């Protein structure tokens, strides 16, 4: 984000004249508290003004590094989320059949007794039979740790259906990632390419940054099938076909190589371009790096031949074949890379039609990028020292910055597409250099970061040691049994998805329903709307959750769910643990999870309660810690078996993951003077609160760039515990872990994939990025289903978290299917027509809006606006339920029928490397509905019954925290939040 201070605008008006009708200086409130917003995942700092115990006003915190005083449309509407009638009010126990919505309110004691009983039984017999999955959880360092303590490998948050392609591709390539783990150098970039950002991640920092870029006259190019939001203010909009971004990126690479417009110095110094790759076709070492006796990679020096690749005075030969000392043949990575992308397959002419972008336009954009990168570098007169100890007098950067997100992530070719974008950055010398994309702290990290995922050897009453979600380096690290079958219920880290770093929440219920690889006993979920918008094919999820075995027991016998609101998933659980709103709780935005660090240094933050709950609800993390103590999980009890932590804030301050390392990095040590590593400080939370609920570190200017090879930066990062050593982090064009999986699939090594997956693993675990058509498209008639269908995120809504908000739902209460005007007219479809959207998985009915700014072969809609009748505290006739719709109903969670070689075996509709849910691979056919079919969406599931104790819906809402007037409304007064 730009580092400029918040502009202080001069007050334009002197004291006004007397106007008895105006009170110029009413106090805003009687109390103001800082905390962290949670109206989306952006983690902005807010100041909450209270008046007489009610919320008067929520504003952006001007001192906060994330949002610097601004606050988006969601954050500014937080009052209405906090007071929403859809809030759950007390623990609930199901008394009717699942889905009937028949619950009774119970006490917390009873609720915790029941949960403990169910969980203890599982832990004492087979802990794998607990599947614990959380949604948009910002406490994964706690929830993941709790799951490991419990002893189940079956834990993840929602990343598998969100952004794991970005995280995995980035962390295995450049040691950082787009997503929230990096940021364009908004202050120096001269050319900004944004790929597939559906108005999400990183909300306010991107908005602030775009304004800064435009003010400086940089060119902003948005590559996106849809021209809304950020794309609307781009200088150039490239309306690409969904799923072809990788081809476009590789055509740009082709052009840069063809014109010799690549930064060879950057490649030689900072990437593995000079490393030698063994060429031994069909051999067990083919495609692995040539290494010396000490295991270090080798390079080909112009004068000395084959030498250690890390030598400071290496003069690498990048092209050709060399004989290694042991006689094997090897080629430099650069050679193999250039050979691939100079191939005719990646010429602009070859990709133009598929991408929907003319070849000359691709060539022009490549030329523009090259011109900015190489003819207009950014030079900062800032000395720095590299990992070889050499001082440089200035920092020279390539001011072409990239950002990419959902439109890349949500495809089954997203991992390789994202790697292609990182390769493009490396060729330009545009990774953490002035003007380019930059690492946000705590990145960069070693590639890949260790250690591998825990999860092998689960047994009763025994914790699993290590992180359940971590980083495989090769076949030995996969979570599979001797036969190669998955150990996890979601099949993450198996041969079906070896780099499923974030788990695969989208497969959990489907796999549990099929008992594949084994049945589960308890499904425990937090804040994940799996019976609606978070599921591919919600109808199937509902079917499984309500399905019974022959003995009359449910297929998934116990479902525990925690949420703050009455979402569509609540009626399908047996036990509801009601959570608080974000303004009633402690939270910790931890360096162990997804912190708020920036390119300028590390940072983390907290939430503090600004109001006490007015219902019988408890913060989920408090509940989890209590359950941990009741179950006797070793880290949650003392020697005598009593609870180790009083509550979540006690855990935040006193839990140590490693000696001196805890959830918060700021003000550590007994006197609060240490950062990163230091003993717990009992005063830590007070220090955070005094500082606006955040902590940040400031890197000195000589550490601001080239962090992957910046000696002083790496030394500091090691001291703070961010990296394990001070070694250069060499950017990985050629990915050896992928090649190791490929070799196994080719029959090498002790751990090999099952036969039916070998061809798949060998094809998709390619050590260089490549493009393939989305997997969903194979095995179905793409002529019949001629249109791609995707979603965008409306900026004022965050997934399902907007419809219970009385203000936000006035902005958007129903969604349309948007379609290119020309395409609609060709199909005989007019504005406002009702249409059927049919895919191989099903069909839905919705209303059309024709538009200009969309790729002609694509239809799209806003995400998660459609709601099930009766949910979210809305009346069943609300537009969200009548006209709003979910595209999810026509998305299959499984790929089309698999090859005959593995009958009955089904594979997730996901990226074959990371397991990322491939939402945007969807293909549909759109036809006009009959006139008598107009007026309401389909499918429409039966209305949900509201939970006991749900408050009546007011006919009128007069929110006014001031409550100072005698002036009354003409209608009866029914006000929420009193």
């Amino acid at each position: 984000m730009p580092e400029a201070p918040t502009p202080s605008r001069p007050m334009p008006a002197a004291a006004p004249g007397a106007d008895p009708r105006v009170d110029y200086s009413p106090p805003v409130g009687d109390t103001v508290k800082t905390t962290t917003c949670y109206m989306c995942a952006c983690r902005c700092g807010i100041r909450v003004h209270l008046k007489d115990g009610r919320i008067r006003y929520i504003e952006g915190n001007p001192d906060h590094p994330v949002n610097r005083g601004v606050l988006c449309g969601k954050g500014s509407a937080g009052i209405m989320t906090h007071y929403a009638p859809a809030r759950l009010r007390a623990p609930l126990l199901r008394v009717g059949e699942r889905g009937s919505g028949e619950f009774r309110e119970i006490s917390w004691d009873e609720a915790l007794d029941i949960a403990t009983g169910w969980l203890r039984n599982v832990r004492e017999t087979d802990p794998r039979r607990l599947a614990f999955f959380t949604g948009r959880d910002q406490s994964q360092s706690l929830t993941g740790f709790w799951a490991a303590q419990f002893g189940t490998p079956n834990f993840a948050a929602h990343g598998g259906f969100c952004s794991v392609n970005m995280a995995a591709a980035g962390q295995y390539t450049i040691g950082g990632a787009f997503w929230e783990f990096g940021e364009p150098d908004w202050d120096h970039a001269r050319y900004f390419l944004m790929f597939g950002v559906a108005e999400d991640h990183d909300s306010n920092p991107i908005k602030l940054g775009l304004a800064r870029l435009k003010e400086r006259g940089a060119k902003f190019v948005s590559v996106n099938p849809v021209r809304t939001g950020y794309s609307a203010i781009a200088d150039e909009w490239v309306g690409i076909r969904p799923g072809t971004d990788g081809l476009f990126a590789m055509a740009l690479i082709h052009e840069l190589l063809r014109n010799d417009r690549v930064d060879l110095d950057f490649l030689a110094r900072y990437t593995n371009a000079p490393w030698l790759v063994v060429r031994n076709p069909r051999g067990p070492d083919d495609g692995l790096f040539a290494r010396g006796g000490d295991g270090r990679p080798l390079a080909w020096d112009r004068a000395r031949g084959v030498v250690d690749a890390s030598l400071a005075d290496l003069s690498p030969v990048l092209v050709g074949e060399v004989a290694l000392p042991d006689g094997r043949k090897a080629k430099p990575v650069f050679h193999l890379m250039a050979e691939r992308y100079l191939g005719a397959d990646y010429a602009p002419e070859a990709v133009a039609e598929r991408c929907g972008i003319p070849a000359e336009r691709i060539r022009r954009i490549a030329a523009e990028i090259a011109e900015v990168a190489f003819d207009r570098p950014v030079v900062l007169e800032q000395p720095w020292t590299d990992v070889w100890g050499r001082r440089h007098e200035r920092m020279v950067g390539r001011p072409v910055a990239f950002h990419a997100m959902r439109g890349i992530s949500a495809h089954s070719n997203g991992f390789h597409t994202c790697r292609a974008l990182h390769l493009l950055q490396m060729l330009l010398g545009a990774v953490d250099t002035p003007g380019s994309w930059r690492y946000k702290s705590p990145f960069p990290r070693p590639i890949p970061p260790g250690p591998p995922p825990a999860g092998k050897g689960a047994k009763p009453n025994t914790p699993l040691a290590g992180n359940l979600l971590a980083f495989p380096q090769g076949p030995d690290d996969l979570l599979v049994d001797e036969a190669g079958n998955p150990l996890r219920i979601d099949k993450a880290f198996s041969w079906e998805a070896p780099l499923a770093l974030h788990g695969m929440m989208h497969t959990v219920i489907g796999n549990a329903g099929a008992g594949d690889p084994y049945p589960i006993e308890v499904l425990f979920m937090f804040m994940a709307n799996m019976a609606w918008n978070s599921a591919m094919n919600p109808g199937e999820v509902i079917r499984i959750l309500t399905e019974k075995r022959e003995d009359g027991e449910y297929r998934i016998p116990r479902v525990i769910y925690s949420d703050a609101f009455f979402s569509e998933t609540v009626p399908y659980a047996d036990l509801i643990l009601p959570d608080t709103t974000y303004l009633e709780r402690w939270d910790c935005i931890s360096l162990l999870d997804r912190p708020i660090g920036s390119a300028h240094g590390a940072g983390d933050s907290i939430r503090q309660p600004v109001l006490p709950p007015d219902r019988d609800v408890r913060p989920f993390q408090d509940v989890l810690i209590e359950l941990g103590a009741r179950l006797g999980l070793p880290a949650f009890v003392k020697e005598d078996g009593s609870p180790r932590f009083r509550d979540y804030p006690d855990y935040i301050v006193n839990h140590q993951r490693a000696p001196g390392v805890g959830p918060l990095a700021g003000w550590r040590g007994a006197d609060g003077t240490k950062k990163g590593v230091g003993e717990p400080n009992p005063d830590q939370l007070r220090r955070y609160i005094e500082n606006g609920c955040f902590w940040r570190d400031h890197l000195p200017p000589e550490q601001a760039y080239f962090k992957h090879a910046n000696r002083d930066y790496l030394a500091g990062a090691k001291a703070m515990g961010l990296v394990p050593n001070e070694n250069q982090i060499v950017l990985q064009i050629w990915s050896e872990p992928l090649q190791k999986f490929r070799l196994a699939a080719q029959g090498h090594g002790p751990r090999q994939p099952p036969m039916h997956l070998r061809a798949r693993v060998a094809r998709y675990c390619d050590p260089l990025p490549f493009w393939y058509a989305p997997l969903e498209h194979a095995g179905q008639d793409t002529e019949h289903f001629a249109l791609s269908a995707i979603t965008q995120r409306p900026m004022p809504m965050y997934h399902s978290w907007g419809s219970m908000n009385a203000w936000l739902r006035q902005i958007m209460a129903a969604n349309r299917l948007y379609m290119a005007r020309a395409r609609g007219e060709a199909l005989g479809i007019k504005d406002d027509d009702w249409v059927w959207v049919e895919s191989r998985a099903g069909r839905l009915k919705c209303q059309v809006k024709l538009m200009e700014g969309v790729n002609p072969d694509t239809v799209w809609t806003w995400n998660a606006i459609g709601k099930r009748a009766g949910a979210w505290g809305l009346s069943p006739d609300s537009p969200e339920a009548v006209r709003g719709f979910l595209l999810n109903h026509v998305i299959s969670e499984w790929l089309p029928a698999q090859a005959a070689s593995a009958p009955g075996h089904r594979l997730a509709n996901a990226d074959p490397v990371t397991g990322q849910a491939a939402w945007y691979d969807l293909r549909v056919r759109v036809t006009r509905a009959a006139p008598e079919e107009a007026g309401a969406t389909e499918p429409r599931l039966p209305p949900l019954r509201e939970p006991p104790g749900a408050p009546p819906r007011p006919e009128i809402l007069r929110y006014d925290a001031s409550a100072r007037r005698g002036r009354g409304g003409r209608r009866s007064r029914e006000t929420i939040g009193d």
Partner: protein
Amino acid sequence: MTCLPDIVPGQKKLGLVIDLDTCVGCQACATNCKEWNASGHSGPLPDLHPYSAGAEGVWFNRVHSFEAGEGERGRTVHFPRSCLHCETPACVTVCPTGASYKRAEDGIVLVDHDLCIGCQLCAWACPYGARELDEDEGVMKKCTLCIDRIYNETIPEAQRQPACVLTCPTRARHFGDLGDPESEVSRLVRERGGYALMPELGYAPVNRYLPPRRPADAGAAPREDTPTPMDVTNPLLRWVDRVLSR
């Protein structure tokens, strides 16, 4: 009918300058306005049927999104709309009770709710749709330029701005005295070609909109390097003898 104050030389004209080059339609200005004003000078801003069909409330600031032009050359426009605080506002002159008034000291157009009878003549008269009927109280409400913020001595000076301006994540909103040619907002209007909305109607709106900037010039003509014959046979060869060092 209600009279307007005399316009004097150097008349202070507080208003907004809205930058259509950077507005992404995020609705921050709309909801932040709503939350400030719900408990502010004109509050509450009631919402009818807030949790059912037909939800409709009072908003002082609404963002409209539409497309202009065809195909790739067209543009998606996000257009925030609120009271323009006209110099000669018809909503004031048409008011039968004197409830609508224009302030001499800063040009802000306000409504005195105690005098307003909710006849809606002002809403008919305003061509910009800036008037909002509070059906609950039976009075008209509208943008006050956050009159209870901009002079508010209990608020730090840098934050004495309308809520919509402070919260805007793309810094697309600016507040100031458009009567002062030396003010920051006047400079922006001059330099960026700011324009008034429908000036031909004669109400002399004070607020200005900044048009999209001319697309940034990346400065590159496509470089059509003709590959050499050597490149054509094996483009890799050109890098064989390239001497590189760290």
